[in-house]
């Protein structure tokens, strides 16, 4: 116990130690997060009228970002499966970074849901002893459970392994292996449940479609590894923790397959909507070509499709065996999927409205600042976790400095 308190104290001290670059980066992120907080404070006072949402388009950028990020969080499993199921040694060196990312991203997800609420102070209405939790009826209550569960699982796994490493003692398998395997299934479930949020609404034809869940997973398993590849290179460049090329190329392979499936499923959807269009294709028509002269989403979706195809084109060619091109592919895929799942999936669900009204949506400045603040906070959290975890992984933060470094888990 005393060891643990010392550990926490040393981690806290370490959090504030770093070079000027570290300080500059963290200050920048803090400043951005505060800008977001300021925008959120304004939203609390004036209500959600500070956003671009309306009665017709009642969800916007917040829920779009939430949906996308649940996928990114779930994609940590793409490091865990090779490491633990296929016992790839090289993946063991990086799996912790995926799990830490999942923690930061899940926190972002929870924040995006919170800022979307009209009455965040009534959040306790969801917590059983004080509130009335509509479980198992509401998929949103399932989502609350699976997201928080995933957060706890990853916090436990990361916390336990890092602490053991700090102590220089080998981790007890019973204390983490079962959780790792639960987390694998759990990761799939968080994104499936999030897809069911939409799929479960029979009144929204654009979402009431079984392909949404598999497409969610496919796009998540492309976007998540894309972000991980980029992160690994930043880690490689700015810290002294060496990440080899093997995990990066393993992720490239996963990403290529996921992206192929994603684009294939997109094609299936486009075929169904446009080859035999029904009254239910109106949303797809609005998205791709505009409806009744309203064309707000056309630039977004075609940009997303262009980015997806550029990314996929790079991934399937040998070009991306070179890191620079791989980075381009990761950036385009990440951005493409972000648009496709946000402006391309959430917004058309509301346009046209169930009564045929075409009301368009764009986030307002205040709404964008809140989003930016949450992204900054997520980056801040992840940077902090890496800042603390890397010295522990390297062995330069250890309970007894003389003790030999523990083996990687």
């Amino acid at each position: 116990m005393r060891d643990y308190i010392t550990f926490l104290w040393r981690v806290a001290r370490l959090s504030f130690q770093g070079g000027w670059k570290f300080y500059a980066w963290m200050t920048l992120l803090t400043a951005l997060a505060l800008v977001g907080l300021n925008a959120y404070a304004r939203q609390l006072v004036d209500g959600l009228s500070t956003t671009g949402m309306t009665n017709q388009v009642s969800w916007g950028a917040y829920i779009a970002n939430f949906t996308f990020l649940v996928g990114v969080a779930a994609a940590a499993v793409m490091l865990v499966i090779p490491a633990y199921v296929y016992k790839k040694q090289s993946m063991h060196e990086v799996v912790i970074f995926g799990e830490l990312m999942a923690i930061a991203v899940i926190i972002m997800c929870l924040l995006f849901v919170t800022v979307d609420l009209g009455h965040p102070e009534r959040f306790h209405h969801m917590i059983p002893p004080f509130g009335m939790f509509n479980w198992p009826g509401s998929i949103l209550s399932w989502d609350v459970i699976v997201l928080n569960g995933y957060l706890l699982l990853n916090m436990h796994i990361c916390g336990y392994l890092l602490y053991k490493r700090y102590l220089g003692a080998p981790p007890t398998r019973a204390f983490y292996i079962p959780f790792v395997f639960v987390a694998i299934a759990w990761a799939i479930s968080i994104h499936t449940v999030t897809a069911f949020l939409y799929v479960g609404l029979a009144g929204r034809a654009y979402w009431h479609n079984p392909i949404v869940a598999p497409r969610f997973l496919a796009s998540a398993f492309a976007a998540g590894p894309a972000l991980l590849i980029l992160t690994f290179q930043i880690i490689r460049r700015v810290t002294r923790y060496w990440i080899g090329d093997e995990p990066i190329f393993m992720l490239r392979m996963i990403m290529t397959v996921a992206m192929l499936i994603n684009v294939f499923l997109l094609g299936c959807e486009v075929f169904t909507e446009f080859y035999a269009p029904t009254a239910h294709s109106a949303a797809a028509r609005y998205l791709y070509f505009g409806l009744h002269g309203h064309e707000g989403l056309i630039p977004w979706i075609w940009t997303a499709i262009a980015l997806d195809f550029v990314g996929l084109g790079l991934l399937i060619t040998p070009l991306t065996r070179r890191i620079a091109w791989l980075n381009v592919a990761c950036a385009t895929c990440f951005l493409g999927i972000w648009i496709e799942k946000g402006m391309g999936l959430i917004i058309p669900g509301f346009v046209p409205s169930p009564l045929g009204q075409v009301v368009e949506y764009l986030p307002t400045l205040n709404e964008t600042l809140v989003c930016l603040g949450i992204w900054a906070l997520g980056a801040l959290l992840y940077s902090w976790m890496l800042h603390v975890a890397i010295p522990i992984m390297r062995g330069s933060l250890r309970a007894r400095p003389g003790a030999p470094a523990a083996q990687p888990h």
Partner: protein
Amino acid sequence: MNPPTPGDGGSQTVEQAARPLTRRTFLKGSAASALGIAAMAAALKPLLALERENLSVDAFLQKHYQELTPQELRRILDRLESECEQSRGIRPDIRDIRPREDTEFAYALNIGRCIGCRKCAHACIRENNQSRESDDDINMSYIRVLEMEKGGIDLETSDHYYDADQVPRAGKFYMPVQCQQCREAPCTKVCPVKATWQEDDGLVVVDYNWCIGCRYCMAACPYDARRFNYSRPKLSPDQINPCQSYLSNRLRPKGVVEKCTFCLHRTREGKYPACLEVCPTGARIFGNIRDPGSEINYILKNKRVYVLKEDVGTRPRFYYFFDK
């Protein structure tokens, strides 16, 4: 079993590498902390403008409507009445009206008679105290009147904004849509906190003091029947209908969802809903579906009835019918 960190790692701990805590670093740290706290305070400054009704401890601790004792409910109604008096300058009469025995409400609308005059949509907003920018603003009305092309019922070609000199226009027909009080209501199913539910008389209601404002019910509704208070409702004292009830037309706080309740403060006392009272063509029929002699049962037995979007499985209590 290679250690993951080749090279120089492990020879020196991070703390050894860090600068020791000196007076200089301490002062620098203090200055940074002060700056951080100041920045935090500046970011949160808009919160000073929060209205008092957002900060009520009583409202925060209030239980779900269905768990309230009669005494608690009485106190809440008193509190809501005086809050309204303080903030709006008019003291309403807010009652808690329970479902009647052996009553289940249903509505029927004669699609052949509706001429699209929008009197129902305007009466709705006068009756139910929705937010409005002007007397003519019906964006928050629970009723949307759709102008449709004759020759089909294609909602996608409906026009919500028609502004003809005279209605009905040639080649068009009109279809008002409001909450259908579905028997299989998707909105109540998805609410994560049970802030919206179906009462024994079939009315789907919202506890505005329990709703967390997630708007999942709005996404779930196939009839666009729900409205969200994106800001504090705008109403002048002379626009307020003081005859109110807890579950229907009392003034809503910002950030909650509201909807048509078939004017339960009227209908549970045996009266007709406001939209029916003003309909110039008598296209609207309302009544108790459990009473075999009611007008609504006459419609169901004798007319050709359809429900909107039967394919989504909501089983509405709102019927459309033709009679010629």
